[in-house]
């Protein structure tokens, strides 16, 4: 496959996950798209054949940096994440979430996760990366990815059941 095709396929496959991954970092869609464009432009300046083997982690790692650059520029304040030590049974962080459609509710919850965990959720479920690839993107160990992702999942699961059980507001 020539580099042109590699890039074309990569865009086809990862466009959405990359943009939404970047969106999680930048907080606005335009910067997220910019970051992804920049990622692909950088890819096109690389020896594509050499990267091809580890293309997915490469893309997400570079995309993450681009998105962080954007965020640094824009002085964007990330929403304060939900911490793990939130006691069970306390009020859900976002009461409004209850009233939302299920998907919207879930998206909201994902966004309320601490940044690192949220990134992992996106990398796993939207981009479909393996733990190994995720560890390359986040520059952490594979086992740390496993633990962090599990923490994220536990928090999500708890919030999900909580918001589900809470009575809908009038």
């Amino acid at each position: 496959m020539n580099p042109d095709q590699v890039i074309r396929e990569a865009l086809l496959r990862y466009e959405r996950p990359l943009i939404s991954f970047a969106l999680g970092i930048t907080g606005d869609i335009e910067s997220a798209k910019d970051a992804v464009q920049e990622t692909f432009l950088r890819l096109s300046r690389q020896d594509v054949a050499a990267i091809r083997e580890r293309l997915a982690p490469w893309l997400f790692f570079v995309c993450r940096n681009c998105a962080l650059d954007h965020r640094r520029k824009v002085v964007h304040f990330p929403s304060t994440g939900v911490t793990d030590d939130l006691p069970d049974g306390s009020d859900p962080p976002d009461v409004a979430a209850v009233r939302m459609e299920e998907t919207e509710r879930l998206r909201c919850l994902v966004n309320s996760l601490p940044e690192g965990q949220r990134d992992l959720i996106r990398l796993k479920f939207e981009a479909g990366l393996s733990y190994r690839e995720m560890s390359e993107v986040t520059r952490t160990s594979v086992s740390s990815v496993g633990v962090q992702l599990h923490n994220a999942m536990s928090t999500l699961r708890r919030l999900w059941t909580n918001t589900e059980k809470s009575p809908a507001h009038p």
Partner: protein
Amino acid sequence: MNDPRITSYAVGELEAAEREAFEKELAENQDLATCMKETAALCDRLEQLVEPEAFFSGAERDALLSRCSENLKVARRRIVRRRVLTVAALGTLAACLVLAPFSPLTIYFGDRAPTLAGGSVPSPAPAPRVLADKPAAEAVREGEDFFQAGRYDLASKRFNQALASDPQNVAARRGLEKTQVPLQTYADASAMPLMASAGVTSGMPVATTAPMPAGDRLSRNAEIKVFSGGWGKGTGSRGRFVEEGAALPPAASFNIEAYDSVEPGRFLEAKGNPLSTFSVDVDTASYAIARRFIMQGSRPPRGAVRVEEFINYFPYELPKPSGNDPFSITTDAAPAPWNPDHQLVRVALQGRDLPPDARPQSNLIFLVDVSGSMRAEDKLPLLKKSLEALIERMGERDRIAIVVYAGASGLALAPTSEKTKVLSALRDLESGGSTNGGEGILLAYSTARDSFIEGGNNRVILCSDGDFNVGVTNQSELVDLIEKERDSGVFLSVLGFGSGNFKDSTMEKLADKGNGNYAYIDSLKEGRKVLGEQMAGTLFTIAKDVKVQVEFNPAHVAGYRLIGYENRTLAKEDFNDDKKDAGEIGAGHSVTAFYEVVPADKSLPGNGTVDPLKYQTSPASSAPVSSDMLTVKLRSKAPDGQASSLVERTLEADAVRPLSETPDSFRFAAAAAAFAMKLRDDPLFSMDWDAILRLARGALGNDPGGHRAEFLTLVERARSMDSP
């Protein structure tokens, strides 16, 4: 249930053996099984979770792919080159090892090596990793990369390292040489860290077109396009090294704004050079650009400071033109505030104002850059608001069209007189894509010609950051294109926006060649000044190709220098040549030029001495000495005229007044000139900040719009930056 295996199992990340074990536990532990079920359900939901807007439009995707394949073409060439280098370097290395097996070898750890090796600092006695760790070719390649990334300092370091390990390395030597050029020309642009600290440039695209030597620029054209990318609103400063995980110094950011360098004028001897000729310039952009830099806490690059634009930024109270004259001419002189031995001669033109009911019908084409690089808040959004100010002032009969350009250009709004339509079309503009300025300019001009109003004000208003990166990107080609269109009777106004990748040099040249004016809009206030307060001046030309020629009388003048207008000087023959393009004056515009004159009894500073000429007859003895110090001649054409008319004024040698008796307009303009020269480190100029402030403060006058008061603030800020 704090067992990571739950998640790992749900997403299929457990090894076969672990999985079996875990499944056994699941069968036995009811809680674990419930938890597992919930997790699996959540996984399903998460997999279906997609961000609704997280995709490109077809056009964005196509533009991106085409830029990528352009890059690939460039990269392919580079990779080939790199491989050749590596082979050569391996040869050299082998030779080294054979020839000097026991001599102390330079052990090289590039500043990235420790980071790559896991962030550890090499131990006091590192294992001899020898040259192979970083062969010359590697260093050269990195040097090249740094060079292209605009990091000339690091590039030169790499090339030096390559030379240290392989003194014969031609590529390294050549690299080092080419690095020196930008390092020197951009010595003051190493004020870049300054800019970076001001946050102007943090995370700006790498690479710079400005400091490349001309020859290089051509050969690298393709790569320039790549690097100064229009999307590059947030290109990381780490450039191509990001993916290697290597930490470059975080402070390193770049500015790829392009400013031409300008040599301050020198003193010329009146005997050998009695004539000084220049084209007027009503641009004001340079002042606004410098203001942006200063307000952000850094000194503007010298090339961005054009003295005449500082002077002409301010409105002055000058005598109104009488009768049908397009402008009035004022000449006066006083001792120079920065050097009492010298005289400061002012030539000031005041253009006729056009009351709203006397304004010709307008046919305006807004040519709006909507490329990705325009997305920033100080670009397209500011542009929209500024143009709104203009649209509100338009008359019923005026027509406006909008042409947008990005990767492709198109007519966003056909010429119309309905303001609401224009406003809504303007508000709908969105940015995205690369910048094909050339194509947009062609379309704008052809739209202007199609809707041409005879005797009216036909004008293209180009709004951009000047970062044309697709299609015709070469400055001279763009200028050619504009020059061709000039004869169609369509004028051009250039409005510059934004920071970071702003191409001042391109913009100024376009306006200069396109019968136009050029303003830089850094804030809504400035937008309102240019398109509101002074809209008539921006839009209605009352005289074009305005040239000034001054003849100095050597009997009273030893020498002189024109302050500012360095890139507007003309050959003396051009003055009477109506084919030579020159500057335009808009309604109500004023133009002020200063000469610093050295009286006949003083010696010229700053010039090397030239031996006296042997064969020139001295005219002094033959004719009675004229009492004139100088004669000012002015040529100009009516906006639609082809032939110029000539006006002359003389200034008597004894007309020099004390500075305190000059009008405010004289002294304030002198202060503006002094400020600009100070910012530019003009070697023939010396005046301290306080003196400039005093001069300006004493000449504030009415100050409509508060521009002069703002000037004081600016000087004060510059002073505080100068003396930390």
